[in-house]
């Protein structure tokens, strides 16, 4: 059909043109695509979640409204959302940091637990002035978490035990260890619960909003996020870490030491997790309660925030707060309307499935032209 046409044989711009139009297309279009697909995923999740809520006999609109009100409706709600968001974000940054380097650290839960325990032990065992003690306890939490995590890293560099496996299993070790210490060495006398005595008033992190659990841990987390962003964008180590995660063999060929990078990164990741444990013990509970740090699943929620944010610190904050809002709002919803809290699991799960799956479509594009 077209064989008889007289075509103007000048082709459109070859792929190598540097016109302004193409410059705008590349990064901006990617952004637009990202955000649109994210919004579509979120919207679909709410739709599907709503249908499930309907099926279980409740009113979805009521449920969603209650969640939003619970999370943001009043100052108590907002404070609760933020309070719950802090460990999620912290754990998310810890996980995301390792993920960014290509290391699958699934041991944040155990690392934060040990961090909290170490901080508590130091607080009740070492007689020092409060300010000094505060620094020491934070340090203890970071060192404990860092070493525990680095152990997983070492098992990989020395014995080829995958970090994914060792870190995950070491969670159980940590849980057992801490439970033992609480019940057999630091148990509160006279009480009926598996918990330790509270730490002294002066050792506690100050409360920012009276009547809520929001502590000065907020500043620590803010500092953490800023530090993470800075390290990634402005330091040689952060750059090497990013490239190590992007293509390990490439980074190693240019001179990055894989053993060093693995150990340092795992330590850093565990260190952040340990600090999260510190914040929970010194800012929220003021004691070690068996199961209180792991029950709410901060580490896992944090990990999911890291995944959907693609390990980007800012995204982890947004994702972390989002999940926190869903969780906080859902407990409020259960209190005020009787709709089971488990709805929040369903909604979160669907969101994660849909948000994570859209990334699978925009895979690597390797040009293989001849």
């Amino acid at each position, binding site marked *: 059909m077209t064989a008889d046409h007289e075509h103007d044989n000048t*082709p459109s711009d070859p792929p190598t043109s540097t016109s302004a139009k193409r410059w705008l297309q590349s*990064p901006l279009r990617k952004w637009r695509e990202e955000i649109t697909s994210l919004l579509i995923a979120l919207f679909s999740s709410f739709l599907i979640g709503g249908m499930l809520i309907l099926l279980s006999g409740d009113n979805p609109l009521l449920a969603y409204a209650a969640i939003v009100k619970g999370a943001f409706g009043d100052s108590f709600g907002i404070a609760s959302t933020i309070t719950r968001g802090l460990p999620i974000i912290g754990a998310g940054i810890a996980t995301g940091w390792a993920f960014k380097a290509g290391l699958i650290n699934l041991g944040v839960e155990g690392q934060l637990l040990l961090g909290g325990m170490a901080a508590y032990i130091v607080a009740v065992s070492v007689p020092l002035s409060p300010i000094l003690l505060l620094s020491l306890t934070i340090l203890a939490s970071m060192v404990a978490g860092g070493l525990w995590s680095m152990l997983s890293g070492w098992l990989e560099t020395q014995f080829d035990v995958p970090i994914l496996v060792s870190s995950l299993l070491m969670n159980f070790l940590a849980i057992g260890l801490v439970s033992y210490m609480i019940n057999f060495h630091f148990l509160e006398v006279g009480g009926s619960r598996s918990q330790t005595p509270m730490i002294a008033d002066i050792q506690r992190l100050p409360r920012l909003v009276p009547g809520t659990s929001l502590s000065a841990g907020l500043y620590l987390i803010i500092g953490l996020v800023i530090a993470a962003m800075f390290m990634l964008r402005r330091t040689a180590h952060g*750059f090497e870490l990013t*490239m190590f995660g992007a*293509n390990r063999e490439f*980074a190693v060929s240019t001179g990055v030491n894989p053993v060093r990078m693995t150990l340092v990164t795992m330590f850093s990741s565990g260190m952040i997790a340990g600090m999260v444990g510190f914040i929970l013990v010194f800012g929220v509970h003021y004691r070690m309660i068996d199961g209180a740090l792991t029950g709410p699943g901060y580490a896992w929620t944090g990990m999911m925030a890291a995944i959907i944010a693609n390990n980007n610190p800012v995204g982890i904050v947004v994702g972390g707060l989002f999940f926190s809002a869903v969780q906080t709002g859902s407990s409020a919803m259960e209190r005020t309307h009787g709709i089971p809290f488990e709805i929040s699991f369903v909604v979160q799960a669907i969101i994660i499935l849909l948000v994570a799956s859209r990334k699978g479509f925009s895979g690597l594009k390797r040009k293989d*032209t001849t």
Partner: protein
Amino acid sequence: MFELEMRGIVKRFGNLTANADVNFSVKKGEIRALVGENGAGKTTLMRILFGLYPQDDGEIRLRGQVVKFHGPRDAIFNGIGMVHQHFMLFDDLTVTENVVFGKEPRHWGLFFDKRKAEQEVEELGNSFGLRIDPAALLGSLAVGERQRVEILKTLYRGANILILDEPTAVLTPQERDDLFVILRRLADQGKVIIFISHKLPEVMAISHTATVLRHGIVTGNVNTAESSPSDLARLMVGREVLLNFERRPQDPGEEVLSIRNLLLTQSSSRPILNDISFMVRAGEIVGLAGVAGNGQTDLVDIIVGLRKADQGNITIGGQDVTKKSILQRRQMGMSYIPEDRYQRGLAVEASVAENLALGFQRKPPIGKRGLIRPRAMQRWANNLINIYDIRVSSAREAAGNLSGGNLQKVVVAREFSHDSRLIIADQPTRGVDISAIEFIHKRIIERRDAGDAVLLVSADLDEIMSLSDRILVISEGRIVTDVLAKEADERELGLFMTGGHHATMKENLQ
């Protein structure tokens, strides 16, 4: 009448027009070369022919009849067969099993009729003069033989039109000559052969006609006999292309890289590297030729520092580096262009700037006391993009968006920016288009003229012969020859390269 006609083919990918009104028609018994740079549209055109995707406009006719393909199955059914650059074969199966896989002759429609299959394969091989042993295990075959199996696969499915994508890229000279004999025989029997290649001397040797594509349009259809490599290159690129290099006569200096008695073993069988010793001097390009799989990869890994040898040592600039890390070797002046840029030379998800900067993050201008300056990185990247003419819209673009040739330029740009005196270049122009090849070769020679020592490892004998001052051949883990390039003979080198494959060698001598 034409056996195959592709008329007015148009194919667009978004804003990019890969094929713009392409006419491509071939007669029975014709060997047509299809040449063009990366991104010129040859792969797209052949993919349309093979049914991988439909054209946006235009039609395809076989023997005058219009055909519409909805997938490769249709194309295969219509007698179109493709031999890819990277073979798709099962090493653990026999030649017969590989050839008939997917279309096995069966007993009662259910059980594999092995005897019949072997018979058919043997007959097929005989009728087309393709020497193979139907019962041989694929893993034991040399590259040239493997390629014959790939060709048999297409013939088994009744191909009348064979498309070969860069078939000679990894063949020794003898294997290439064998292939040409086979192709001529197939053409004499009426088959249409479409031969995609960058290697202009070969195009001149084998094809009857050649079609040149550039930026999606046909810039020329020539009778090979009336054309020349420089004509073809000019049609491909749009300007005169330097195909042969002038360079200063060699004035080699001190020894820069010295390898002594390297031994690398593997369990029970023969060592991967067996007492390897050689050296590279300043201002010298030493080419290491060899068929892939004879130990080159391991040798390079050991030299770079990614692996340790069991015995032997390595010195750079007189200092023993056998136990030193990659970073330390680099600090002593080593640069490395890896064999597989995607595996080791780049991070496709990272930006071009980041890819250009890795290795320089702790030195000025980019790095200062552990911190990096993003703007300095951008400037660095933009500078290299300029100097090396890397076609990219911005340094922020993801590396994965670039074409093979451009990506290789990124690797070369980065590695050549080190203040190095030893360059390890492993297959530096693999999968790269002709103007990028010319560019990279020029740069390598420049460095050699400036006094660097270059170890060039390549499976492409033409590249080795055109660039090297001295040529080594590695075969079965041993260096089997060490000659000056000007005294080297292509045939002889080819024989050394296949030294370990006794079957091929015997045939060649007959």
